[in-house]
């Protein structure tokens, strides 16, 4: 389309499970962002690092917001920062930390955009303590052809404000956001608590609910299933624990990682990695933790993601209520023992919020299970069994992570799916904002 800075570009989701040749607009000024014909299907594209295809596909024009990455206003006393939606979370953290503030809720990838964090309502290092991204957003500005540009907050255009979090970009293009910053801990120490299984991990997670950083790492192999360590990052003022607090820009994980020409995460590779991590991590103790490392753990994971090879990976993330978690974990252990899927890693996190719409929140324990070669029948069957098991136990999927979940399973798994979909549709007349994710789960 001449005059709109649009070109055909090959795009892939971060997990490499969906690829498509898409029309991508690269506006560098507001008038170009607003210039698309009013009836042109579209979707905002920020950092392009969503595991699933949330910013492209579905015959939409992807509107790249990379040029809209500016810091607009900063109140150093109150800790309020207004930014354009294309600003990367890593850059925002760098600025905030340099001025004595930070965003406690941040995804692991530093190139995720603020708009993307809002659209996915991401969680951070301890969602039980901090909530999800919406908890630190004071106001947003959205633009949509039929509605124009509006500001939404908890007291203004409230329905639109609430629907936009975990709205996957379907309520309009978020152009600006005002963020509520928090004071960072002076320093962190990382306490390691080895656990034998998920039941023990759940107990340790619940006891450490107020830690700034809290998550578990677990072995997913049959015979070792659930064994791991809960990592508890605690605020500390001890001078010997102080480390550089600013994440370095040069260390940022790239948006797209070139895969290794072979899959490192086969059965032998996973065994070696898990054994090594077990020896390194699964012993009690504590050590200083740099806030930078706590905020962006994926910066050290380039080889890990490349190791999935061309076939990529899938992350299935399910949040299971406390009352059902041990039964779910037991059933999952049985499934793994029986079907022997390849599982590269499992991470556990504690949640203590209330779900709203499609948000990934609730009161319970979440397991993020990353598996290689998801196209293989054994792996595909495991993902199906996992979804079934999770749904039976009241589990809730993280839609921004899981790229194999179909519309029927999503509908069964999300309580109030139809109401949440209707809420999005009310702010998206004609389904103008769309994506592959929206198409796949029939939003």
């Amino acid at each position, binding site marked *: 389309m*001449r005059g709109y800075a649009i070109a*055909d570009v090959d795009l892939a989701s971060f997990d490499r499970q969906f690829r498509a040749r898409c029309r991508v607009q690269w506006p*560098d*000024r*507001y008038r170009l962002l607003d210039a698309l014909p009013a009836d042109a299907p579209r979707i905002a594209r920020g950092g392009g690092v969503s595991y699933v295809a949330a910013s492209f596909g579905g015959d939409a024009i992807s509107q790249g917001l990379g040029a809209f990455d*500016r810091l*607009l206003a*900063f109140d150093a006393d109150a800790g309020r920062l207004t930014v354009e939606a294309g600003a990367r979370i890593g850059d925002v953290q760098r600025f905030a930390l340099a001025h004595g503030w930070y965003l406690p809720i941040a995804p692991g990838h530093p190139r995720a955009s603020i708009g993307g964090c809002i659209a996915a309502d991401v969680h951070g290092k301890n969602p039980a303590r901090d909530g999800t991204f919406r908890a630190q957003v004071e106001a947003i500005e959205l633009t949509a052809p039929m509605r124009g540009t509006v500001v939404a907050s908890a007291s203004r255009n409230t329905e639109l404000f609430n629907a936009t979090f975990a709205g996957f970009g379907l309520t309009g293009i978020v152009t600006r956001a005002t963020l509520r910053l928090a004071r960072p801990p002076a320093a962190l120490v990382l306490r390691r608590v080895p656990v034998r299984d998920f039941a023990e991990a759940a107990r340790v997670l619940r006891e450490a609910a107020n830690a700034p950083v809290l998550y578990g790492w677990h072995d997913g192999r049959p015979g070792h299933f659930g064994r791991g360590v809960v990592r508890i990052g605690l605020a500390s003022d001890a001078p010997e624990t102080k480390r550089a607090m600013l994440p370095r820009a040069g260390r940022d994980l790239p948006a797209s990682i070139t895969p290794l020409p072979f899959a490192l995460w086969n059965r032998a590779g996973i065994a070696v990695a898990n054994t090594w991590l077990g020896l390194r991590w699964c012993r009690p103790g504590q050590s200083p933790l740099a806030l930078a490392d706590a905020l962006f753990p994926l910066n050290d994971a380039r080889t890990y993601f490349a190791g999935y090879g061309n076939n990529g990976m899938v992350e299935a993330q399910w949040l299971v209520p406390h009352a059902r978690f041990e039964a779910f974990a037991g059933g999952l252990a049985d499934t793994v023992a029986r079907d022997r899927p390849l599982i590269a890693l499992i991470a556990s996190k504690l949640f203590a919020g209330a779900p709203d719409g499609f948000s990934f929140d609730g009161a319970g324990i979440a397991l993020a299970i990353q598996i290689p070669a998801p196209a293989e029948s054994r792996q595909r069957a495991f993902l199906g069994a996992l979804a079934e098991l999770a749904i039976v136990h009241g589990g809730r999927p993280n839609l921004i992570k899981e790229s194999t979940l179909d519309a029927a399973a999503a509908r069964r798994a999300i309580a109030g799916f139809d109401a949440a979909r209707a809420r999005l549709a009310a702010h998206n007349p004609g389904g103008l904002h769309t994506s592959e994710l929206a198409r796949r789960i029939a939003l």
Partner: protein
Amino acid sequence: MTALVVGASSGLGRALASELARRKHDLLLVASGPRDLEALAADLNLRHGVAVRALALDLGREADPGARIAAALEGLSPLSALLLPVGVSREDDDFSLDVSRIGQLLAINLHAPLAIVHALLPKLLETRGVVVLFGSIAAIRGRGRNVVYASAKRGLVSLYESLRQRHRSSELRVHLYQLGFLATNLTHGMQLPMPATDPVVIAKTVIDRLAHGSACWYVPRKFALIALVVRALPWTIYRRMRG
């Protein structure tokens, strides 16, 4: 010292503004879109702690842009650098434009730089400053495309020569960059005969050279040789070339 960037809201202009702010220059930014300009000014001020003033100006319609800009400089530190990465081209610039569009192209690509240089010359002479002009390889030799755009850019070469002829480097330095393709939204997705250069890379080079004496540079450098060859081609051969 203050640097003035005209055409600052996007592409090379934005990259130049960012690089200047990184090096702690106060800035006056001029472009047509007030929303983009205000956002950029706020960003550079917050990130780098420099004074940044924004002036929204439609160079295609403004009769006396130099006077507006000179007025906007009041109260800022003395002007030491004037950068003019301003320009606009059209796909239909092939003798099919009507007279108003020809006027608009000339206004933005030639009249505005001339008028701004005229208006600010006394201030730049006071600080022994630098004028940085940006030409285009499209203007190396006239073609059936980019007719008005190339004419205007060729006019900038004449402006560069006039300034150099009139003022010694000790009084005023004049830089002219003859640019190839830039990786901006204008070339996004286009099939180009050679790779486009990142404006951030060019901006760093331009600002690195701000203290240099008057000179003309081709970016990328290989265009200097290409320009030499194209200019040396006999007319009978050149006229048969297309593209």
